[in-house]
């Protein structure tokens, strides 16, 4: 490594001697906004270490780069105006890295299906969620798998798949911000949201 760098230095010093005056324009790309190299190149090879009046190097305009911050309306979380209906649909919970439906979960899903069959105009969205411990990329897919597991179960119980959409929040929407098993257990869940 040391030899390589020293080698580079040697080459560079020679380059400066032999080809002094070669412009270095590569910082500013042609398509940039306000670029201009305003003077010819000086890369001086003068041996003087401390010239009293150092020759000015090429001036490079620093291009103005301002990202635009979006002024987006803050989205209100749509809450179906159906608090009573919503209250009838219970959440189900999962084990770590699993979308298997426990016996408890299947019982809850059966009750949710009974309720849905009495309310044939009701449409729901099943939202799958994960705890924070897994990879968030992977959890995005796991949350979806959890939502789909519940949807498939409800469809098997006779609820039309047209009435059920699914959405994964991965680990992005915890109900408990804690970092222990009690919190994680609450967060590994499917929620059943009335959408119509």
């Amino acid at each position: 490594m040391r030899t390589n760098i020293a080698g580079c230095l040697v080459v560079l010093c020679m380059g400066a001697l032999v080809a002094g005056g070669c412009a270095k324009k590569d910082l500013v790309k042609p398509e940039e906004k306000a670029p201009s190299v305003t003077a010819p190149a000086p890369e001086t090879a003068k041996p003087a270490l401390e010239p009293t009046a150092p020759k000015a190097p090429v001036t490079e305009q620093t291009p103005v780069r301002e990202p635009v911050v979006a002024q987006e309306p803050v989205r209100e979380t749509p809450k179906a105006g159906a608090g009573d209906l919503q209250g009838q649909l219970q959440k189900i919970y999962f084990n770590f890295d699993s979308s298997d439906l426990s016996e408890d979960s299947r019982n809850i899903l059966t009750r949710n299906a009974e309720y849905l069959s009495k309310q044939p105009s009701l449409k729901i969205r099943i939202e799958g969620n994960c705890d924070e411990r897994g990879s968030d990329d992977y959890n995005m897919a796991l949350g979806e798998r959890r939502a789909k597991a519940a949807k498939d179960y409800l469809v098997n119980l006779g609820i039309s798949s047209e009435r059920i959409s699914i959405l994964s929040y991965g680990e992005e929407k915890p109900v408990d911000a804690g970092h222990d098993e009690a919190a994680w257990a609450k967060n590994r869940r499917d929620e059943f949201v009335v959408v119509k």
Partner: protein
Amino acid sequence: MMRILLILLLLVLGPQGFAAESYLDVTAPTSGKMKLAIGPTTALSGAVPGDVARELPELFGFDLGIAGPFEIAPGEAAGALLLKSAYGVQGDTAILECRLVDQVLNKEIIAKRYSGRVKDLRRMGHAFSDEVLRVLTGEKGPFTGKIAYVSKASGNKEIYIMDYDGHNPQRLTNNGSINLYPDFAPSGKELIYTSYKKGNPDLYRRELFTGQEARLSSRSGLNAMGVFSQDGNKIALVLSKDGNSEIYQMSRDGKDLVRLTNNHAIDVSPAWSPDGSRIAFVSDRLGKPQLFVMDANGGNVRRLTTNGAYNVTPRWSPKGDRIVYSRKEGGFQIHAISPDGSGDAQLTSAGSNEHPRYSPDGRFIIFSSTRDGGEGLYLMRADGSGQTRISPDRAQNTHPTWSVNW
């Protein structure tokens, strides 16, 4: 090679060639690093404001210290190499003149003069650091690139960008929803990301300097983890429109969709090889999440990781020789492995570390870590050395991605 260069140098320089030999002596410390002195910032005219006089030498010291090959020494005398800077303001314009001097050969190696807005001073400084690396190592530095990341500073996950060293954080999205997975286009001028701002996790492409935005993919289910191919023409992403998460590729405009995986398992986190011929990804098709590599058309799938029960979020190095990823063993640790499955090496050990990505030049890996509490952004060299926190605040900051030089 070295010998030939020295002989050539002697021929060109004559008596001064002896200086070259003594230079080599000076730069033979046991650490193997070259001593680089950072001189104080002097005034082009008038006086240098105190904050500039402090900030610039610090900036050069940080950039070139994290770079690796240098031992940074404060003060002019201490190094074989000396970085000198001079600052002045003319009206609204700041001028920064920088020189790198070989004090042994008594030579100026490079000199640059930058002009721009006063507020762009750090950018000018980083531009010179980039140049110093270019002249001394043959490859330009990445220090004028930007980091895009996800931050919960506002209470919601929004996309931000900042300088590579954590300065100048700016919020890009402001929708109060959940915004995830930023990825720069290779030009550095566009960003794709996934947002729930219209309810479904859809993929958006944002023009950074105009703010113009296009919704590229809004298919039912996930439209997530989009990543540009190195040539910028294609995007690999995860869709679940067919009932289960699968990896697809499409054009940069969201057209010409091609499905690459076809499996009941979870398939997520695509990562292009730099030549665009292969895609690494995560699948739990064998039970637990592991890394796989396939050809870019979906063929020739083979398992990459065989150690560890939970390996995720691969990213290919820009030169193609390594794949960095995160392994869960309790918490997460960052590893790197060769694309043929050899040379697996653990790079982190403190806290839980996720979302690793290479800088565009491959010198560095940026990642998120819980080591200091919360979740912050950190930087290290590709070999795991020099781990340094860069997060500007204590908010939850994740998913960093490093653009080419702006």
